[in-house]
């Protein structure tokens, strides 16, 4: 981009096109896909600023400006919904995010290849079981006479129904999430681990490094780019805590700690009328925050570790 080498725009375009002609050819189907299935429907986002009327369609409905955004933000539950959504995401980042990394590291240290493979196969299983069934089991286990409650009573807790008690809801939610997802989550890290050159370990052993040194100085740096990428992607989901599992676990007594944006939107859909406009507005609001977060995270990690999404 120095002033001396400045050529005409057309020349630069031609050179780029000819040097990367196959790359453009390869990009074509992918770009077409994104245009048709992702960008073309985006005109629909305008119903967040309109009062959607089936008869008039998305384009023809009347503009109402920021009305639905204002209703949500000024609504009585705004603060609580934001707090619960952010807290649950935050706990997930702290507890659920590192869990598969740790498990992958431990799996990697197993000596027997056969045992390792068996463990791997088994810990993937919960991923395949429907959330409805998983939640049914959670209900059973943490009820007044459930196994987990029994265990906690042995440790000195007062007997209660854990799902009925606001104090335990988030713990039950996060821990059961780890229980179901930790095995499946290791896949990506185990795959990254195979990319590490075995010679590095041999050299380290010759230098007298013990197991913990090897993990700290070779394994972790080896999968650091994957961890960073996953972390950025996870940060971009902070506002979108899913509703299905919470709906199956919460009750009016735990709304105080369990009600998140997506469950609120779900309940809105169930009450009078079909609130496409209001729900789109809330969705847009969440997305904007998510997108801001991922932009920031990307800038920060690019400065710190030279790994970034773009």
């Amino acid at each position: 981009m120095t002033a001396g080498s400045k050529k005409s725009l057309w020349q630069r375009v031609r050179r780029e096109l000819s040097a990367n002609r196959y790359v453009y050819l390869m990009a074509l189907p992918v770009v077409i896909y994104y245009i048709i299935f992702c960008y073309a429907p985006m005109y629909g986002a305008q119903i967040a600023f309109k009062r959607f009327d089936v008869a008039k369609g998305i384009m023809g409905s009347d503009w109402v400006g920021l009305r639905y955004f204002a209703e949500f933000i000024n609504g009585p539950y705004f603060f609580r919904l934001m707090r619960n959504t952010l807290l649950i995401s935050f706990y997930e980042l702290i507890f659920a995010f590192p869990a598969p990394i740790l498990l992958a590291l431990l799996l990697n240290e197993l000596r027997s290849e056969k045992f390792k493979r068996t463990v791997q196969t088994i810990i993937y299983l919960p991923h395949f079981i429907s959330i409805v069934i998983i939640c049914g089991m959670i209900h059973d286990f943490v009820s007044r006479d459930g196994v987990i409650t029994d265990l906690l009573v042995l440790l000195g807790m007062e007997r209660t129904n854990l799902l009925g008690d606001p104090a335990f809801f988030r713990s039950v939610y996060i821990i059961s999430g780890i229980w179901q997802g930790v095995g499946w989550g290791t896949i990506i890290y185990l795959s990254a681990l195979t990319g590490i050159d075995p010679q590095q370990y041999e050299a380290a052993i010759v230098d007298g490094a013990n197991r913990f040194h090897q993990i700290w100085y070779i394994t972790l740096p080896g999968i650091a780019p994957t961890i960073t990428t996953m972390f950025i992607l996870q940060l971009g989901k902070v506002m979108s805590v899913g509703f299905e599992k919470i709906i199956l676990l919460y009750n009016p007594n735990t709304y105080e700690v369990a009600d998140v944006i997506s469950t609120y939107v779900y309940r809105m859909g169930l009450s009078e009328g079909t609130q496409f406009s209001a729900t789109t507005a809330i969705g847009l609001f969440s997305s904007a925050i998510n997108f801001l977060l991922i932009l920031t995270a990307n800038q920060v990690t690019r400065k710190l570790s030279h790994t970034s999404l773009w």
Partner: protein
Amino acid sequence: MMKKHTGQSLAAILLTAMLAASAAGCASEPSESQSSASSAGTSSGSSVSSGASAESLPEGQLTAEPVTLTYWVSLDNNAAASISSYSENKVYQKMEEITNVKIDFLHPTIGQETEQFNLMIASRDLPDLIEYGWVGYDGGPEKAISDGIIIKLNDLIDEYAPDAKALMESSDVVAKQSKTDNGSYYAFMAVGESNGNTQSGPFLRIDWLEDLGMEEPATLEEWTAVLERFKEEKGASIPFTGDANTFISNDTICGVFGVGSQFYQEDGVVKYGPLEPEYREYLAFVKDWYDRGLLDPDFASNDSNTIAANMTNGKSGFMIGFAGGAMGTYLNAMSGEDYDLKAIEYPKMLDGSDPMFHHRAWEVRTSGSLAITTVNEYPELSAQWANYFYTEEGGLLKNFGIEGESYILNEDGDPELTDLIEHNPDGLSRQQALAVWSRGSTPSPGPVIKLQDANPRVAETVDIWNRYSVNAAEVLIPPITQTPEEADELSSMITNINSYHEEMVIKFIMGQESLDNYDNFVEQLKSYGVERVIELKQAALDRYNAR
């Protein structure tokens, strides 16, 4: 070597798949175009139907040339257990034989009916006929007509569907519920003829009650006495079980105090239960049960499985629930054991008068109404076709299936189900068999006749729970429709009000919020706009009453 192989075979697989994709992509195109391609031309179908009245056609046949209509309806859960489309249902097979009209059924996924319906409307990719709870259409059925989704049926019904008209005008109540505020007919309705309007209510362990030598409790005071003795003498640790809805949205107990759990009417005036002082007494009453251990302390988090377990393993012996879905299920599971359940009447009001607040369906069921869409090329024929269900033979066909196979007429001329339904050889339950042989298992266009259940305990609920259900018409809010503007204004308020109400009711009962703060609760509800909601509902109710 190995590397090269993998790379090549991967590329080959991908290429083949790509080719397959493009080929099949083209092939799949024409599949759905049939219904959407047909353009307006609502009057052009008359030639076909005028042919129907001509002498040349055999009796009942509506058209000389076979006609196919597309029909969107959710497949009843009971039917879904054994068939995947109503085209396998005997009623429609018979109908095709008689009328020469073939129905091509489109079924939404169970549990996603609303999404699919909304998408169908928004995309305007309409079938010829839609069976749906049109009262729930955003802005009401009148809006569905003005939106150009369905057609107004008044003229068609007058001319082509005399039997449907007769049934839908058979009484004042039915006539009101069959029309919009402007007097338009918009669909062929499911009309409940007999007393099957209440299908849920209180029931208890009658074997325990008899052991204790007690009478069936008729007042809440007597309910409490029964619960106390269940707890003390029958070892029921939590004698009364239920879920959050039992106390949030069910009127059975709070109705005793003279108020509805949410919106209700008193002499044509809309009210909201929690705003009335009696509602506080109701909460104090339930809280007392809770404090004394008569009520399941975990009711707020119970799901249907927990309730089922409590009722069958001796922890509980008293609840409010459905005849078949709850009581029938438990009785089946415990058959052959020392266990019996019996429905009891809704409790008397505090002053000893007959119960008013009932859990009940309306004479005209709000679900299962059949509308003709604007793309339908044969509206007259469709009306004639639907009319058949309102004739005597059609009503029998629809409710009981085929004579001599799924039902017979006894000496009195009343239908009786055969063993094909009652003891199905393929192991289907009665409801499931009924759903294959008839449309009698859920509300559908035509008369809805509720049959006696085979289980005597379940069968008698019809009499016990319906004894006072007619009173409920005075207090419950009928299926009113809000205008689009009203609905839009309501929607933002109602979610907040409902959430807050649910939460606070539970907190008051469980003592996490003192009833001394009840006034704050009322104030808060008002700040969420509950009074405006009452106004809007009142306007809709007034329009309804003026129909």
